């Protein structure tokens, strides 16, 4: 399986991915071998089941949502490009990047893109707002069973109150960003 990996990833593709995501050559190759090892169907794409087979994700509270984040709207398969694109959000920011071309497109792993990723995890209906219900759902996922619904509701209310600035009882992306501004 290891030798397959490098031969099936063409050089042009590798270059494109490198440019788009900023990963290094060796990182891309390694991730490709990971991709192929996850791809049980050997058809070059990953389905949700392939992700679900990763045992650690089953015990991660946000596991399933994160899996969904890999799949573009309405699709059930993700190819290697898509896989890398999503992973690229989490590539550690290197120093030599900071001085790069300011006018160019924002690198995938910029802070704001990372936040956008997290925001999309909360915002299921894609209306660019985290409503109370959506927040409640996420809270419920992240919290143990010993907490009652009322308590959870009040936490959600308070969280929205803290963040909400335009008074619409929902958290928009700008409010979200402001909240997490360290």
């Amino acid at each position, binding site marked *: *399986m*290891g030798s397959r990996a490098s031969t099936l990833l063409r050089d042009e593709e590798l270059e494109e991915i490198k440019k788009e995501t900023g990963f290094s050559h060796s*990182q891309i190759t*390694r*991730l490709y*071998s*990971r991709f192929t*090892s*996850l791809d*049980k*169907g050997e058809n070059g794409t990953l*389905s*949700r*089941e392939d*992700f*679900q*087979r*990763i*045992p*650690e*994700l*089953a*015990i*991660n*509270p*946000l*596991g*399933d949502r*994160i899996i969904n984040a890999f799949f573009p709207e309405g699709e*059930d398969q993700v190819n290697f490009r898509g896989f890398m694109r999503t*992973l690229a959000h*989490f590539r*550690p920011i290197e120093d030599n990047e900071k001085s790069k071309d300011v006018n160019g497109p924002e690198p995938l792993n910029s802070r704001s893109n990372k936040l956008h*990723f*997290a925001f999309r*995890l*909360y915002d299921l209906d894609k209306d660019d707002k985290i409503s109370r219900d959506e927040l409640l759902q*996420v*809270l419920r*996922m*992240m*919290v*143990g*069973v*010993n*907490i009652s619904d009322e*308590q959870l509701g*009040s*936490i959600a209310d*308070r*969280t929205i109150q*803290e*963040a909400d600035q335009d008074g619409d009882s929902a958290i928009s992306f700008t409010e*979200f960003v402001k*909240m*997490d501004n*360290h």
Partner: protein
Amino acid sequence: MLGRWAPGPGWGVLLALLLALGELPRARGVEEEPGDAHGGTQGFQVVTFKWHHVQDPYIIALWILVASLAKIGFHLSHKVTSVVPESALLIVLGLLLGGIVLAADHIASFSLTPTVFFFYLLPPIVLDAGYFMPNRLFFGNLGTILLYAVIGTVWNAATTGLSLYGVFLSGLMGDLNIGLLDFLLFGSLIAAVDPVAVLAVFEEVHVNEVLFIIVFGESLLNDAVTVVLYNVFESFVTLGGDKVTGVDCVKGIVSFFVVSLGGTLVGIVFAFLLSLVTRFTKHVRIIEPGFVFVLSYLSYLTSEMLSLSAILAITFCGICCQKYVKANISEQSATTVRYTMKMLASGAETIIFMFLGISAVDPLIWKWNTAFVLLTLLFISVYRAIGVILQTWILNRYRMVQLEIIDQVVMCYGGLRGAVAYALVVLLDENKVKEKNLFVSTTIIVIFFTVIFQGLTIKPLVQWLKVKRSEQRDPKLNEKLHGRAFDHILSAIEDISGQIGHNYLRDKWSNFDRKFLSKILMRRSAQKSRDRILNVFHELNLKDAISYVAEGERRGSLAFIRSPSTDNMVNVDFSTPRPSTVEASVSYLLRENVSAVRLDMQSLEQRRQSIRDAEDMITHHTLQQYLYKPRQEYKHLYSRHGLTADEDEKQDTEIFHRTMRKRLESFKSAKLGINPHKKAAKLLKRDRAQKRRNSSIPNGKLPIVSSLQDFTIKEKDLELSDTEEAPNYDDEMSGGIEFLANIAQDTATDSPSGDTGSDAPLTGRSSPPAVEKPPRARASSPAPSSPAPPSPVQAPPTPRSSAPAAPPEP
């Protein structure tokens, strides 16, 4: 603090015993004389005081008792043990006791002899480390570990020795009878990080798993280097400085490879033997645990006999035999082995530290040279730091998961020296190394410094660093929540990207293992059940399932996989959700890192003014308590003193069941259309009607499925000679169980039916041919229609109808 100790009578007895101990050797002498003198005339004596008769074992037993009582004593005060590491307390106790014995007897009669240490005290500890080693993590980081262990130790030894020599040449140390080789010898024995000390301290400081395994692995593997360097330099010293030739140096390098690889090989051979033996111990269950210990110990001694690295041998014996031994021996034996190993290791560690303290109180060995001592301390710290930084810089270019500054600090600071160095230095020959006493006293000082001072301060240091890196501001609810969410996201991304790489190697190994090793080493029934699982889960790629179980077992986090044995509290917890939140809150609060709690208190103070503040406080606290913790924070992989399942397993089970339930529901709603619930209910009923079955994975336990009381995984032909008592869980059936139930059923039946579940009769539920049907055929059919997964969903419809037709045989 003293007030909280209530040891009064205990300590009194202890002191009395010890004083008596001091007196006894003299009393013994006195006693014999009257006996001799009156022997002829006294005739038959009804009762005699035969101290001499029992002296040796008595003293040993007494010391063990003292050490254990001391442990009880320490834990009477929680405040003390949370600040001061146990090892430090034991050393101090040792000093006290040594002082008492010295005062009573005016000679130091007890000390830690190298023989006792190397033959009796060290093996259990190292075996314990090897047997409970998280294999996947270890081998995943093996490159890093080897780099630190080999290069790092050599670097430390060389630089320390040479620097000391340099300072000596400058005359700062005064007049000493040492040569370059002596310094290098000293450097080699003081350079090595000690596994005993490291573990003792790292247990108190909860670091992330990668860091832990690196330091831990390093401390174990550097034994080979230490042994080689020590032997090489010692023989050089014996030869005399002038007679050392280039050939000898080359021989030294060669011997490193021989020693390390040879030791590993010995360990692996014994692991093989051990696994083989346990395969046949079905009828001698009672002595099964004995084999584990005896064979492992033999591997240690054999390696020692062949002058190879004994620590490596017993470590690898433990590492390699884990899987097969656990598969072969019965559940009770496994528990016995675990507990006995922990007991021996813990006891040995206690005795070692105590005796380190006692041995220090020996006026004969002390020779103080200020410059030497201080410089040694300085050099080992500085050079370790430099070494770690350099190596980390190199490693970070090749690692996916980088080692950050805080990790490096912990690594530098956590490089403790311990009893191994002491034993090695005491082994030196005084005639060859003239300044042995200087070395001994310096070694003792270094050990005390690292264990006590560094052990005491490492925890606050880590917490300070973590706090420094995190926010100083008052964290809002949002920040806490989103911060935690981010942690979960990061864990997930790490898992998806397979941070522990080398999948190819691991696949190759598991293939090899399955084809050859397991056939030879694993009991037939365990194999069969494994093979059955292989067939049943074929479509799901069993190696995922097995490694999943192995992972769970390894981590202990999915311990509900194992057995209903007593150390498994998770099952009980799960079936009756605990109403008490008080307990949870205390333990959670204690577990949280200090920064969070502290900042929480800050928020409390600032907003004390209004009612709303009270509410805020409650909200903050509630959130704090109940948020699930991300993977990195809670994994304590290795614990010398603890075996019980903990809170984290509860978290894991909750999340797992919830996830599985959701997945199952989404499968079902996609596949079954209108009435998912009805069908699910029917499925439930049918399952309940079936008999409970033993299940399958090694040790007769299929992870989650076994907890499903009525579910069978087609094991009816499985000849499990030791039928385990599957636990009788409550009726609450979780989605996860159903999910796997469905998968297993479906793949076993493997009917060629389409999506909508026709009533095709079950074709030989347990027969392999059924299973061989191409999985992809079925997988591809649902693919276009929905996002649901291929096979499992068909399970509910198919077996349901055919179940009455082919009831499972018990």
